[in-house]
């Protein structure tokens, strides 16, 4: 059984034929479209390393079937920078050492973009920690991540470019 879908992927429309209904959005991105920024950590919706933004909302790509996303607008870490100009959240993670090994970082950054866009946390450290609790960091870089999100939340024009 093949399932044709059309996605807008980082701003570009793409027709895809799925040859297996089990393909998750995460596997589609990583294994078929060569977009390996979103990481497969737990593959069970627990770690947040696969976070991407679908139709403006951050979700776990490992728990979404690609077949169900026909017509969706998807933003991954690869679509965040404009050329060589980093997105303010990316720059803030650099400024504050918001990572150590880097494995969880694409998910952290996409989650932060989603959080800022949702507009519920502002710069309140407690609300940011709560809003980022779906992204685990085994290196424990949480202090830097928190500062990065606080700085990015204050950046002008920071989230309008999120799909």
């Amino acid at each position, binding site marked *: *059984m093949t*399932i044709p879908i059309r996605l807008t992927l980082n701003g570009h429309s793409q027709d895809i034929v799925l040859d*297996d*209904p*089990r393909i*998750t959005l995460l596997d589609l991105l990583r294994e078929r479209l060569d977009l390996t920024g979103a990481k497969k950590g737990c*593959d*069970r*919706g627990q770690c*947040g390393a696969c*976070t991407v933004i679908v139709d403006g*909302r*951050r*979700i*776990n790509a490992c*728990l*979404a*079937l690609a*077949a*169900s996303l*026909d017509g969706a607008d998807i933003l991954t870490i690869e679509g965040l920078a404009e050329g060589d100009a980093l997105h303010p959240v990316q720059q803030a993670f650099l400024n504050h050492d918001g990572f150590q090994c880097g494995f969880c970082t694409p998910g952290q950054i996409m*989650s932060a973009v*989603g*959080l800022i866009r*949702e507009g*519920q946390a502002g710069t*309140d450290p*407690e*609300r940011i*920690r*709560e*809003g*980022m*609790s*779906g*992204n685990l960091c085994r290196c424990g870089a949480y202090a830097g991540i928190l500062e990065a999100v606080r700085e990015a939340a204050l950046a002008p024009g920071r989230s309008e470019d999120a799909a």
Partner: protein
Amino acid sequence: MNLFEYTRATSLGEAVAAAQKPGAAYLAGGTNLLDLMKGGIAAPAHLVDITRLPGLSAIERLPDGGTRIGALVRNSDLANDPDFAETYPMVAEALLSGASAQLRNAATAGGNLLQRTRCEYFYDPASPCNKRAPGAGCAAIGAATRIHAVQGWSEHCIATNPSDFCVPLAALSAIVEIAGPQGSRTVPLTAFHCLPGAQPERETALGAGELITALVLPPEAAAFARNARYLKVRDRTSYAFAVVSAAAALTLDAGRIVEGRLALGGIALKPWRVAEAEAALAGRRPTPETYAAAARLALAGAEPTGAANAFKVELARRVAARALALAAAGTPARMPALPASPFGLA
């Protein structure tokens, strides 16, 4: 994950017809179902994708003052709807205390009612489980039972329902709208989830091929807006299932409780609401003694399944009493930074 046939339904009738196939399951947010399929716990032969069904994604205020929540409304959209959160604050607080932001963005209102227990032995295909394989036995009994039941369990199953959302919904007497091959019907939320008894494999009131289309909060549910809280004790302050939780709501007049609502989570296979406990609130002064009396009645007959969860009986009494005290103190003007947490209370 097993191979399955995939159908994207475009109407309710089409969905119900497609779900007549043997081994069919409905797919909405998928946050629990895909996890179960990856673990080999669920293996539907046919997935009927209902995410495109029209008319199931709205939050509507009804002419009678009630509210209808479409089954496909995302948890985050419901919790962050300003009118909904103001009218039913403990429902919003419960939603925001559950899972992570990513999961709340995907998970639906209807799916929340259908999430399976988080019993570790249910999730482990190597452990016998009467839910997964009726008659196989229960590996949880006598084992690590920190998250297991102290009310309503049986010798066949001691699992709990993990939902936060369902706890305040039960307290507010929500109604579940159901569609299926025989047409549509409604079931009170408090009668939707089954206690395990001798048939733990039977989990909800849904019949074969039926699906949830909406949840309805009756008009009187809005009366509790100013004095309603959800309190959740868990092993981490965020992104953890409840060890014990309570939804408490009051109406107050001239220093007396007019009506009280109380439901507990994490202690049974369904949200635990006890009429006697609520009756003990009506007409009383809002004092610690009143709350303690109601909490005692809510836990009447409670029995731990072993030493590992004996603490939950007293913990549940205290959480219930404290939730009532918090409700009496008033709904916070703004959602607490840590929803439903006993820490940093607003």
